[in-house]
């Protein structure tokens, strides 16, 4: 899931204070699970902003709404009309959602971020989130016992560990596990330590963010959808 954290309230207030009609727009998927930007958080933030506006003597209408997902058009459709009546949308979706809605509104209304999108992670225990994938576009987890060296190693080493491992912790912080320490121990348990003896060559990072904006195009799905649309149009006629 995508993990995020609500921005500091003062930063949010600075963003919104010049607007008169503001919608706090939550997303009920990933960011709801991490208590950052779901419908509930959007509602609480709305109350806080109303109080702040009253305190500061600012005339502002603040409302809230939430939809299941901010990354696919169909979820937006039911609220599209209502959304277009506001001066500002403060989205508490992840960065994907903010971009998606801003593109959808095409510059007619500004869409501001209410949360900081942190990482792709898991929830090992309630209220605790850890980064587990870097979305590098070229997965090597079969070589490293299911432990990502790209984001779980502070130096993204492919041939670790470095000399900074201290009692199984990373030199960056003694609260951070050394990924390569974990990888070696995991590979021992799996009986595949010998896989680590091979030198991994320099990576091709172009599959990640270093190759420019990425897209995935499934031609068969797109062709099918196009055909369906055509059929529907023909039948309609």
């Amino acid at each position, binding site marked *: 899931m995508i993990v995020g954290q609500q921005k500091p309230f003062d930063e949010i207030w600075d963003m919104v204070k010049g607007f008169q009609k503001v919608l706090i727009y939550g997303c009920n998927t990933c960011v709801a699970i991490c208590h950052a930007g779901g419908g509930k958080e959007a509602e609480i933030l709305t109350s806080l902003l109303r109080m702040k506006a009253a305190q500061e003597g600012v005339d502002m209408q603040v409302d809230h709404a939430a939809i299941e997902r901010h990354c696919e058009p169909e979820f937006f459709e039911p609220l599209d009309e209502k959304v277009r009546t506001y001066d500002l949308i403060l989205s508490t979706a992840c960065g994907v959602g903010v971009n998606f809605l801003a593109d959808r509104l095409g510059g007619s209304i500004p869409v501001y971020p209410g949360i900081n999108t942190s990482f792709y992670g898991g929830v090992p225990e309630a209220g605790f989130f850890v980064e587990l994938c870097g979305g590098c576009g070229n997965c090597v987890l079969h070589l490293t016992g299911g432990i990502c060296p790209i984001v779980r190693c*502070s*130096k*993204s*080493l*492919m*041939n*670790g*560990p*470095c*000399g*900074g*491992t*201290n*009692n*199984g912790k*990373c*030199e*960056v*912080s003694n609260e951070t596990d050394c990924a390569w*320490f974990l990888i*070696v*121990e995991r590979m021992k348990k799996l009986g595949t*330590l010998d896989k*680590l*003896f*091979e*030198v*991994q*060559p*320099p*990576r091709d*990072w172009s599959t990640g963010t270093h190759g420019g904006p990425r897209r995935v195009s499934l031609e068969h799905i797109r062709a099918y959808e196009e055909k369906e649309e055509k059929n529907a149009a023909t039948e309609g006629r």
Partner: protein
Amino acid sequence: MKSGSNLERVIASGKMAVTAELGPPMSADPHEVIKKANILKGFCDAANITDCQTAVVRISSIAAAVIALREGLEPVMQMTCRDRNRIAMQADLLGAAALGIKNCLCIAGDHQMFSAAGKLKGHPGAKNVYDVDTCQLVGIMKKMRDEGLQQGGDKLEVAPKFFVGASWTPMGDPMDFRPYNLKKKVDAGADFIQTQGIYDMELFKSQMEKARNLGLLERTAMLAGIIVPKSAMMLKYMDSSVAGVTVPKSLIDRMNKAKTVAGDDKKKARELQEQEGIKITVELIQQALEIPGVKGVHIQAIEWETAMEPIVKAAGLYPRPTFPEA
């Protein structure tokens, strides 16, 4: 000869090699480098020029290496993977070779967050690079030298001829993997290895035995790292806080004793600890050189370059061998 560097020649001659360390200053003043180079000259075969160690901005290793070279001290230019991508690395390698640098040590580099824990501000908010890691950088240098090719495959009309080094932390954890970690660096093409500072020689000996059994010590020149202790406090700090370093209690006790003997005389306490530190270093060097497969020592007298002369002399490693100009 792969590079024809002085360090390579000493190692090839079968004599024990001595390398030292020169940390460039946080200043645009070259005199600090010139001063240190002249103190070290004659007491080592080459000196490592650190590359913004602890992620603090200093004179770049390539520039400081050239200054040292002009003073007659052969540099081992260090290159971290933290600050440059493979394009900048290879460009710097070509430039360094063109300027006459012949040794390069590949290291991952201290993470930029690391410096935030120290006394200096550093740049903990910097973006790091880590495009390639140490093993990969070693491989790139070897490919450039031996095949005349850039990592991307483009041809080099004149290849940079480096004597390629890598660091090794023999006692870092997971300790049973460290010999294999070394193997990867050797497989990638490391001609020489400088280790993290060693105080526990028995433990190092057992790690070396494993490296020997993997057939690594015929394929690379192992230089045992010795960090010259200056005080009991420094030894305690190294033992508790420096990754991959353990200091036997007996050594800490010796330093404590040297300190206590001086009583309240702080100046004397410092002098006695420094004397004891030099004595300990000489003993460690002698023990290290007896370990089969060790081809020399990497002595780090950090911000205490004047200690090199008495250490090298007392260890019977003076004068350093010289060779006629090739």
